[in-house]
């Protein structure tokens, strides 16, 4: 074991063990209850709005590559994309997916094609549905603004990892008259989405997206494990803070092992 990672490994194994336990329970029908997440509930409304207005839904599954630290957020964004694509296929609503990372493009394309295939609308898929715009940050943002304005998108959904372009996209969507739903776990960009969007998914709510929308029992079980993990972290933080306050550093030393 690498020095300094023993405690981390212990927590890692514990989290996975609890995850396996809850997922097994979920398969037998014991599904944990989760609270309402307004941002995710609003997705169906947003797609409904686009359908009524006869205008497209614009989706951005994050901007970073799938082999970076933001991969988990990208995957969360792609999970929500699958759900959104199925709904747009079902309601015959146009969808435009903007991709900024080359290695996300084939994945997003496959997801949209699969979604339309499952809804029996495979013939409606066209290349314009999933477009690689640019991996250059502001070229991508400019292209997104152009699509929002020229195609008069009715709803803009952005879930994934974003950087400085987040405010540009959110405010641009608002100026184009679209309903905006956005979510990211990147703490620097959350305030921009909270301020400028109609609905926001904060932090780990984006990881709940796929499970919440699809009502997949195994996915929902994962959410319960996340909450238990946070509870455990809270206990360790409180216990550790109290111990250090009274001069006992054993918790800190154990965490550093």
């Amino acid at each position, binding site marked *: 074991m*690498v020095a*300094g990672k023993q405690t981390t490994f212990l927590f890692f194994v514990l989290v996975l063990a609890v995850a396996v336990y809850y997922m097994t329970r979920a398969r037998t029908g014991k599904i944990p209850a989760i609270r309402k997440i307004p941002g995710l509930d609003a997705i169906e409304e947003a797609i409904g709005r686009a359908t009524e207005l006869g205008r497209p839904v614009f989706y951005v599954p994050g901007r*970073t*590559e799938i*082999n*970076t*630290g*933001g991969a988990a957020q990208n995957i969360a964004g792609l999970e929500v994309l699958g759900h959104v694509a199925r709904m747009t296929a079902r309601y015959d609503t146009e969808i435009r997916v903007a991709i900024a990372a080359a290695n996300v493009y084939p994945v997003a394309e496959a997801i949209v094609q699969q979604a339309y295939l499952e809804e029996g609308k495979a013939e409606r898929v066209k290349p314009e549905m999933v477009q690689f715009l640019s991996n*250059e*940050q*502001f070229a991508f943002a400019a292209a997104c603004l152009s699509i929002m304005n020229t195609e008069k998108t009715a709803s803009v959904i952005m879930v994934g*990892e974003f*950087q*400085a372009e987040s405010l540009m996209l959110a405010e641009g969507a608002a100026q184009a008259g679209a309903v905006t739903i956005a979510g990211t776990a*990147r*703490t*620097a*960009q959350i305030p921009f989405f909270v301020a400028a969007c109609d609905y926001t998914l904060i932090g780990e709510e984006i990881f709940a997206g796929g499970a919440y929308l699809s009502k997949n029992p195994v996915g929902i079980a994962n959410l319960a494990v996340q909450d238990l993990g946070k509870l455990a972290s809270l206990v360790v933080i409180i216990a550790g803070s109290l111990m250090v306050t009274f001069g006992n550093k054993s918790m800190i030393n154990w965490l550093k092992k």
Partner: protein
Amino acid sequence: MNILKRFGEMDRRWLYVILLVMVVFPLLRPIGIPIDVSSSTAKFVASVDRLQAGDRMLLVFDYSIGGGPDVDPQAQVVLAHALSKGVRVVEVAFVDTGLNYATKACDLWVSKGKVYGTDILNLGYAPGVETAISAFGQNIEAIFVRDVNGKAPSSYPIMEGIKTAGDFKLIAEFATGIPGPAEWIRQVVTRYKVPLACGVVSVMGPQNAPYLQSGQLVGLLGGGLKSAAEYEIAVKMPGAATAAMDAQSLGHLTIVVFVILGNILFLVERREQKAKKA
């Protein structure tokens, strides 16, 4: 009240004009607002000051074009400070546009008399973001087989004894997004225990403050251009960043005025609606 309502209904382009005037004016007629050095900047300065002549420092150009004006002044002043102390600097980039900035900086200092390969070296750009950083940490020459001039890094005196990221005395990384401090902490600091100081755009400053508090960063230029100005003042090398601070001050004040006016209007309208309902 009419003024407020007119402000609320005003074409947003007038707001842009007001903002433009407030930012450009101090560039033409500097005001000279004094600049204080924050503690996080002072820590960064101290981490470079602790280096001795001959020590090797890694300077990472992980910033894109968009954030360049915010972060490039930071990188330039840190590079100038390090070279002025006789510290030897190896440049790398894990963002493609960072290579351009690295090359410009290297060429500038070579033209000022620094010896390429002895005082300063540009290893170039490696794609792959975090996977490349992880591999770089373990074996530098596995990722940078040749420098920008096509020669093996180990053929240069500056790279003598440098095999992994842990062999550097200090790593200074400048980022506008990904990869950023988090990636370097995960892949390099945690594994090799090498001191890392970072410079970032102002919007990333707050999210990286926890790393400075926990000691995973030894210094943080978290205010973008303002941090660059603070560093310039601290090392007595005033430059472009210092000159731009008046414009930043007035720009911030203008935005705050817009926010306050917008909120006063919002409260007034809400009160009027409540009165109408009553």
